[in-house]
């Protein structure tokens, strides 16, 4: 009886809420079909596809033509890189090192972390291949690794450079496999230690080693299907069994991927209803990747996440469905998925325009770009981004940072943004010089106030 009352109550609440929600959604929905005026199209493109416009950027896009400019951004290899950026990146020694080289040369974690974070800011501020940088940040965050987890400190640099960066406009399946086989991910989500039941047991230690389901779970929940993508605990365990033996050779000195047949669980598996027969060895894991990379849930999950970054916090399902369809039709071609989004009415709509709160990285980079800042050292900017709540390469959880606007709206965060704006425009951020003419009167303590304004926090 009591259960029934509770149930009725829940139902009433649910119906009440959904009626309200649907009215609100309908109104929001209409906003996505109202097109922005023509003169807002270039600002919209610059806001969303770059780390914020610099003075003169809008004029330049106009000169090239918006369509052509977008096409170029989708083919970053056709854009000559800013020589200033290359020169600045050269000073960050560890960015081009392999993990083993770092170990050999006795690099310390602090330096590696600093080079990575400074490199990210310099690229965000100076790169001519802006969309490439935005996507690099997006996909690194999607396949997040925590730099402070043990041996990962010597793996993250190679991971971003060799695994993420070359594939952000390629096929999702390739990107997924590259992450799955990267020492950085194998270490971060513990798969390198996960072994099957017949694995030889180490001598002289009590207890035994066996299965670890950390990677199997996050692969499904965070990298591919999404938490509501239709898998069970059993699927998590089966996926983990398939990946046993995917491990790291020499993890303490950078490491390389290796398949260790001796520790692989070679029995039958059934993953998402698909039978994976015994004896498959390394290909078991590849089959799992095949299944999830081409799964409709993955197409939808990835499309929605991209639309949340580039269009709106609650992107209309009409758009997400079309992106997902492109994903499925093109075997997960990420450039095509982006193109579907960029050609959509929704991207150029009132519902999208200036609707997103900037993340700390986006805020800091866009402020420096807006003032045409000259960055000698990005170290202080790195600290600023951390203070605003987004320490780069140091998100411990595999979820990565949220891209939802509400995540970044709070009292302490807003005050920190205001103070940063004043510091930057007042030329008080060490290592950064901004164009004084842009920053209003010299010695004006309120210079830069625009960068702390509500409008500037959005893009």
């Amino acid at each position: 009886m009591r259960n029934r009352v509770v149930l009725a109550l829940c139902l009433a609440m649910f119906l009440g809420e959904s009626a309200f929600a649907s009215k609100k959604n309908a109104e929001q929905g209409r906003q996505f079909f109202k097109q922005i005026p023509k003169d807002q199209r270039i600002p919209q493109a610059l806001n969303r596809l770059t780390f914020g416009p610099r003075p003169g950027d809008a004029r330049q896009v106009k000169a090239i033509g918006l369509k052509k400019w977008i096409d170029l951004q989708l083919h970053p290899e056709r854009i000559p890189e800013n020589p200033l950026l290359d020169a600045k990146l050269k000073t960050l020694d560890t960015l081009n090192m392999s993990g083993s080289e770092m170990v050999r040369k006795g690099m310390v974690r602090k330096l590696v972390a600093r080079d990575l974070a400074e490199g990210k800011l310099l690229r965000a501020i100076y790169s001519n291949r802006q969309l490439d940088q935005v996507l690099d940040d997006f996909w690194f965050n999607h396949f997040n690794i925590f730099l402070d987890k043990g041996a990962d400190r010597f793996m993250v640099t190679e991971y971003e450079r060799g695994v993420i960066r070359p594939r952000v406009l390629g096929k999702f399946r390739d990107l997924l496999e590259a992450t799955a086989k990267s020492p950085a991910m194998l270490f971060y989500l513990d798969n390198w230690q996960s072994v099957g039941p017949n694995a030889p047991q180490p001598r002289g230690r009590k207890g035994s080693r066996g299965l670890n389901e950390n990677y199997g779970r996050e692969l499904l929940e965070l990298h591919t299907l999404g938490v509501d993508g239709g898998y069970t605990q059993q699927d998590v365990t089966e996926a983990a069994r398939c990946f046993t033996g995917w491990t790291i050779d020499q993890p303490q000195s950078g490491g390389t991927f290796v398949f260790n047949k001796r520790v692989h669980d070679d029995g039958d598996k059934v993953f998402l209803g698909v039978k994976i027969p015994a004896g498959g060895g390394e290909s078991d894991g590849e089959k799992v990747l095949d299944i999830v990379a081409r799964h409709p849930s993955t197409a939808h999950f990835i499309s929605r996440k991209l639309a949340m970054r580039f269009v709106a916090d609650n992107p209309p399902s009409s758009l997400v469905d079309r992106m997902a369809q492109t994903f499925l039709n093109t075997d997960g071609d990420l450039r095509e998925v982006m193109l579907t989004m960029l050609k959509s009415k929704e991207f150029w709509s009132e519902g999208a325009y200036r609707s997103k709160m900037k993340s700390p990285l986006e805020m800091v980079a866009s402020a420096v770009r807006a003032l045409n800042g000259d960055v000698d050292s990005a170290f202080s900017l790195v600290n600023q981004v951390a203070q605003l709540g987004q320490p780069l390469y140091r998100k411990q959880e595999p979820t990565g940072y949220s891209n939802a606007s509400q995540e970044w709206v709070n009292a302490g965060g807003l005050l920190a943004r205001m103070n940063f704006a004043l510091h930057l425009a007042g030329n008080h951020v060490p290592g950064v010089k901004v164009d004084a003419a842009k920053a209003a009167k010299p010695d004006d303590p309120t210079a830069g106030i625009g960068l702390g304004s509500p409008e500037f926090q959005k893009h």
Partner: protein
Amino acid sequence: MSTRRIFLRNSALAMVGVGTAPLWLKRALYAADGPLQRQKILVAIFQRGAADGLNVVVPHGEKAYYNLRPTIAIPRPTVDADKRQDAAIDPDAAIDLDGFFGLHPSLAPLKPLFDRQQLAIVDAVGSPDPTRSHFDAQDYMESGTPGLKATGDGWMNRALPKAQGKVSPVRAVSLGPVLPRAMRGAQPAIALQSIDGFQVRNAEAARQFQQMYTDARDPVLRATGRETFEAVGMLQSIQKQAYKPAAGAEYPRGRFGDSLRQIAQLIKSDVGVEMAFADIGGWDHHVNELGASASQGPLANLLREYGQALAAFWQDMGDRMQDVVVVTMSEFGRTAQENGNRGTDHGHANSMFVMGGGVKGGKVYGQWPGLEKEQLYEGRDLALTTDFRDVLGELVARHIGMPSVKGVFPGYDPKFLGLV
């Protein structure tokens, strides 16, 4: 009398808004409704990453525990609870609580609180939702509605008593760079990383910013801006004082210790805090949870920081603990059996701590479900016998004094355990 009080409140609030009101006036103002009855305060702590409850509150009287964890079980206590006075505690064994449960040795600083009956433990508690996703489980626990993703606000926000007129702008405060899900909602709530940093460095700029945010087109930024500047005005007066914890309390270094120290400072400054929140991450121990002994390794180190911070807070607060309840939670527990790498994977039920002057402590609450195979949830995890909303609901009702918790935990009728 009441007219005068209203007048006092309105004019004083105008001053609070621009940050010129002296501290005594603010205190008088927010205490105006009952100077003798001090505000009750609830502090919630979230252990993000799913703490291994079975190695935090150790069921040392359960044989199956030792069978399931051949390499990472916490050894049985060498001294039982009754004889604790006459023998030294083994630093590598569980600290006995009641002959069946014991604390992880790193939590030794909390044992005196348990003995003085100011710390209660609830075991086999958690969210009934079966998810083993960190993200979803945290979300459900913070929204207070397991299984419902559409809930927009958090349980702490809903648990704030309806404002009678104007209330303190810092009545709900979270320490950290983002406002946690538990505190989001219609009632103002602020996030801050440090009390000292909570200001605009230049007064003229502050004035202009305040105007800009008042005029903001975006309703969320407008509202948050207003809350922010009201809170800035409130905290200005305590920023200038160097804070010294009382009774020689020593908070551990690190973000969690800093958070609790600042919550103590805010409470003791009488600026009107009613709800506070802090979190501590790093509990996702899939690998080598324990070092060479129970008092070493990642779990032991984290628990040391955690226990020291809670104990320091208790010591620092002194008599004020009469008004305060601290409650801890983590999104789910971990597998009863250790995994293949001396760690544990995602599980189900966990434990919660409830600490405060008015807490009926010195006891482990909840029904122990056992750890035999058939007693485990889905054959692998500690089963759940108490819903986390039973604990939180009781605190909201009996400690905060909310007449009904229906709105706080919709669709659920909490069963009180008698914790307070």
